[in-house]
């Protein structure tokens, strides 16, 4: 297992490098010359050449990439054009807010989906199964940016029960989920975000448990006279590693893809940061956010993989 873990960690290094190359290329392809935006329109060719040299733009592109990578590895992702603050600190600050709602959403989705999926698998083919499966399909098909708006209409506009957007009192930098006054702001974003993972985790749970319930040892348990709950206990123990893996992957997708939900609720996470950066064409900020989010996603996937091998020794990897 340690052998596998070491190899898996080594394997994610080239992937992370590839991710950084894509992030770098995207900015190269983006319209607009970075030098032009720094200079007054009447700059002389000498001034342009001087500035190009100062920023390293006179070097070949692979060399520029290496320079950029070395700086990025030391946490220097440039300065945001909009706020004049380092991109790294801005993104890292926002990342914690994104992680709060993503973890909340995955936990909510998991607890609901696991119960629903188990019930559906145990009653496969019956009406309860149909209802649970329908919930799952709706969860994956619903545009969550629309659901967010509908929830705002119902809970914030009509009922006035929950705040429509933002994250607590203005200017607050630290978010405390255990303080009700602040946690209220997280409820609608978490609800909105949880729907897609709810659908996916439910489908996985249903198929995993249904498969186990079909196996011979379950037949044996039933023949021995075990009740439904005792049988399900065996099935759940066997299905859990697989479902936990899907849950981990979903967490990665939520952290990386939070932009739509965060834009709707003006939740000051990485997604909101990116959507502001897109509107103001703040390229360093956009690039830094994409890079850090992609690296976070790769890391989460790596951890999920390692955890799965540790938890489930049946999985033999080569």
């Amino acid at each position, binding site marked *: 297992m340690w052998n596998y873990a070491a190899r898996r960690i080594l394997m994610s290094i*080239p*992937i*992370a490098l*590839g*991710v950084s*190359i*894509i*992030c770098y290329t*995207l*900015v190269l*392809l*983006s*319209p607009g010359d970075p030098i032009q935006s720094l200079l007054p329109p009447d700059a002389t060719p000498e001034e342009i050449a001087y500035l190009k040299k100062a920023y390293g733009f006179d070097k070949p592109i692979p060399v520029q990439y290496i320079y950029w990578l070395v700086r990025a590895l030391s946490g220097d992702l440039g300065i945001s054009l909009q706020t004049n603050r380092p991109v790294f600190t801005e993104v890292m600050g926002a990342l914690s807010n994104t992680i709060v709602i993503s973890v909340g959403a995955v936990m909510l989705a998991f607890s609901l989906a696991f119960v629903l999926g188990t019930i559906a698998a145990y009653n496969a083919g019956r009406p309860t199964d149909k209802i649970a499966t329908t919930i799952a*399909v*709706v969860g*994956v*098909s*619903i*545009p969550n*940016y*629309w*659901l967010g*708006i*509908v929830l*705002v*209409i119902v809970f914030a*506009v*009509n009922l006035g029960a929950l705040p429509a957007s933002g994250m607590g009192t203005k200017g607050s930098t630290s978010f405390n989920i255990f303080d009700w006054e602040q946690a209220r702001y997280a409820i609608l974003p978490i609800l909105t975000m949880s729907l897609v993972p709810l659908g996916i985790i439910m489908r996985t749970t249903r198929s995993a448990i249904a498969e186990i319930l079909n196996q011979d040892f379950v037949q044996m348990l039933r023949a021995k006279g075990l009740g439904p709950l005792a049988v399900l206990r065996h099935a759940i123990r066997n299905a859990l590693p697989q479902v936990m893996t899907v849950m981990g992957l979903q967490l*990665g*997708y939520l*952290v*990386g*893809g939070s*932009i*739509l939900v965060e*834009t*709707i609720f003006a939740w000051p996470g990485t997604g909101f940061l*990116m*959507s502001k*950066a*897109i*509107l103001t064409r703040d*390229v360093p900020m*956009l*690039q830094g956010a*994409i890079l850090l*989010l*992609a690296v976070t*996603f*790769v890391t989460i*996937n790596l951890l999920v993989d390692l955890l799965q091998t540790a938890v489930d020794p049946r999985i033999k990897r080569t």
Partner: protein
Amino acid sequence: MSVASLSDFTAAPAKDKLPPVRGYWASVGNRLRYDYLTLFFLSVIAIIVLLAIFAPFIAPFDPTKSSMAYRLKAPGFRNFILGTDELGRDMLSRLLWGGRTSLLMGIVPVCLATLIGGALGVTAGFIGGRTNTLIMRTMDVIFAFPSVLLAVAISGTLGGGAKNGMLALTLVFIPSICRVAESATTQVRALDFVEAARASGGSTVSIIRTHILGNVLGPVFIFASSLISVSILLGSGLSFLGLGVEPPTPDWGLMLSTLRAGIYTQPLLCALPGAAIFITSLSFNLVSDGLRQAMDVKS
């Protein structure tokens, strides 16, 4: 107490004719014929597609003609069956026309990605070795981005517009389709009939065409059909963020974002384009599920 007579169990179906032996596609079609849920949603898709195609003839008003006097009117106001949007444009006409762009954003990227990803996957799977490693590791790198993030990253840096949005979505879908095609090809390549075809002098191209493609297309097709719903959701999401279709072109995602400002006065209007996206993506999802069940030989 009634006792079942032996003949109840042994009554041979010989009196009736034996069930006909069907080919693969005929049996798939037969299974679909009795899957009423899938058929229903297939007809919903057909209606949505027809409405989008014939939008110029059906739409009661010009979708881009605005009117300052009739802004944000409720459904049923004068001749506006579904009301008007924030610039006084007819909602029904905009929803019909918007279906065109939204469906295009859903279908075109998936088709392109199926062609490119499928070709790459078959190449990787059939040649194997270094070519396989090169192609599949490149795909792994693209796969290392969450789909929403990659789509936003590409269209965010390249700039908005429907063309860049479709390009972004195509790139998002290529790796997953490529993986499906690669694993199917690798499985088929190892089978005896491929060996036999090669032994009897078949060229690479003809082996791929006659023996590989037939076995790879099924799984790739099923997988790609499940992506259409994702593509519609992502495409509308990009427009919602201002990265997809540009105004004043009607698009469901874009309408959702511009009508958001009016949720306090006309909450229902804002719900309409979202409902359109939801129904379309739900239909594609359910039809894709139905197709997978019908084409799954094991079930």
